[in-house]
């Protein structure tokens, strides 16, 4: 394994040691948390702005359009311009809205997506939170987001918002199950719920490849269910703009709307990063089998690509896939959405888990 050249462990532990040399342990923790927090906020804003721009360009190319081109070269500053516009817009509220909850909702949504990012293994040693129940943690915090959506829909005092919020509730309750079940397959394979261990178990091959058919089925189900969980098309029933105007965020304007907007894109990033971690080995480079001639040279070449590039590359591919879904398919109806989950995804998933367990017992996987 020659992947240690891009190991961040040394860097992070150096920071930790130099800090604890001058400060008390409690102060060290506080300073470290602050640094991590600031880094994540900056990261969050950057990724959010980039994803909005990327989505606009991707959908433009899919739709035979040019996309944003006016602000900056190839329009790269378009989202910043949009952000400034939204910042300066008036914040509106309906007459009998529940003021406290109405203002709280965007923060809950954004915090939920923020917390999930903390658990992502960006590169070796670049891992803010590494619980031994990492998968459970990510599932749990990404489920908080729906509370924000429900609150937004309910407190808006708008019937369209309420329909959107309730749809979203039904949707998350159903699809959370499929996401969990799909991840269960990998948990069985890897034998751990700790994200770093799952990544480490993929050093000799990604689970998508060494898990045979069960892992592929689980991956497909994970992609479908997580697209549904992020309320993106074709599962964007909660905002379904041709039916519910804008669904749960109909009444939001200005920066509060921007929060929802940003959270949607960050959720997409979280889900894609999570998928890349669990199924595609996070920062693990792509290796081919040693049986193929000259494989070791190829593998060494792959090792020279830094881990975080692998991570963002895989995440980007999955995000592209989700965008591709959104700009191709029509939206489902609420009953069809639930049918898809309870009649198709869940039974297939259950059978899949049994097959996985059988595979693991017989040691059929690599």
């Amino acid at each position, binding site marked *: 394994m020659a992947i240690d050249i891009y190991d961040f462990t040394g860097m992070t532990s150096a920071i930790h040691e130099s800090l604890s040399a001058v400060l008390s342990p409690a102060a060290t923790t506080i300073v470290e948390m602050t640094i991590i927090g600031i880094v994540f906020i900056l990261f969050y804003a950057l990724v959010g702005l980039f994803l909005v721009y990327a989505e606009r360009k991707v959908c433009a*190319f899919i739709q*035979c*359009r*040019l996309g944003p081109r006016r602000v900056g070269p190839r329009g790269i500053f378009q989202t910043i311009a949009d952000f400034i516009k939204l910042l300066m817009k008036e914040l509106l509220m309906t007459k009998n809205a529940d003021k406290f909850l109405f203002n709280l909702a965007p923060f809950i949504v954004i915090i939920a997506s923020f917390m999930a990012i903390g658990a992502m293994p960006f590169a070796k040693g670049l891992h803010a939170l590494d619980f031994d129940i990492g998968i459970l943690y990510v599932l749990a915090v990404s489920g908080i987001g729906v509370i924000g959506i429900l609150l937004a829909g309910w407190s808006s005092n708008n019937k369209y918002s309420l329909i959107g919020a309730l749809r979203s509730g039904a949707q998350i309750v159903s699809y959370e199950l499929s996401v969990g079940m799909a991840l269960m397959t990998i948990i069985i394979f890897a034998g751990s719920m700790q994200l770093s261990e799952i990544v480490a178990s993929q050093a000799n091959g990604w689970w998508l490849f060494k898990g045979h058919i069960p892992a592929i089925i689980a991956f497909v189900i994970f992609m479908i269910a997580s697209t549904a969980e992020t309320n993106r098309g074709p599962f964007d029933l909660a905002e379904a703009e041709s039916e519910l105007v804008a669904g749960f965020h109909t009444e939001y304007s200005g920066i509060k709307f921007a929060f929802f907007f940003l959270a949607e894109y960050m959720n997409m990033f979280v889900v894609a990063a999570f998928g890349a971690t669990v199924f595609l080995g996070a920062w693990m480079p792509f290796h081919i089998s040693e049986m193929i001639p000259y494989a070791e040279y190829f593998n060494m070449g792959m090792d020279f690509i830094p881990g975080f590039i692998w991570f963002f590359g895989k995440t980007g591919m999955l995000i592209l896939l989700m965008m*591709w879904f959104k700009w191709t*398919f029509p939206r489902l109806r609420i009953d069809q959405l639930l049918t898809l989950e309870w009649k198709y995804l869940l039974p297939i998933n259950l059978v899949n888990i049994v097959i996985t367990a059988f595979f693991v017992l017989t040691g059929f996987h690599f």
Partner: protein
Amino acid sequence: MKEIIQYFSDVFHAVKSLLTGMRVTGYYFFHHKEIVTQEYPENRATLKMFERFKGEVLMPHTESNEHKCTGCGICEMNCPNGSIEILTTFETVDGKKKKIIDKHIYHLSMCTFCGLCVKTCPSDALAFGNDFEHAVFDRQSLTKVLNKPGSTLNKEVKE
């Protein structure tokens, strides 16, 4: 058993139809030559438009500042919206009083581009222009006088 086969064939066909759709959009994603939209036509000088495009009503003038309008008022009569007003004045030529055009007032804001004025004009004095940028800050500037100041009637036009 039949139901189970049906179930899996449903899943298979569904996935197949979805992939067919994704192939279409994926094709366009990677083929940027198929892009059809254009940026706003900033190249006003070199922009080539269809010559019959109905942008606004104009009165073509020759180089010697001559137009063909006799001030007969047929366009005013034919306009369904009253967007044309003709003000005439009298000029004395060889001791005879003659009616000539003073101002041919055209309200662009009221025009629906039906083309009746251009079609019915007996001396072909009016034509459509290609200008498409009509946004202005003041509504007054949409009221235009079509005959240029100091212009005279083209001699070739019979009254």
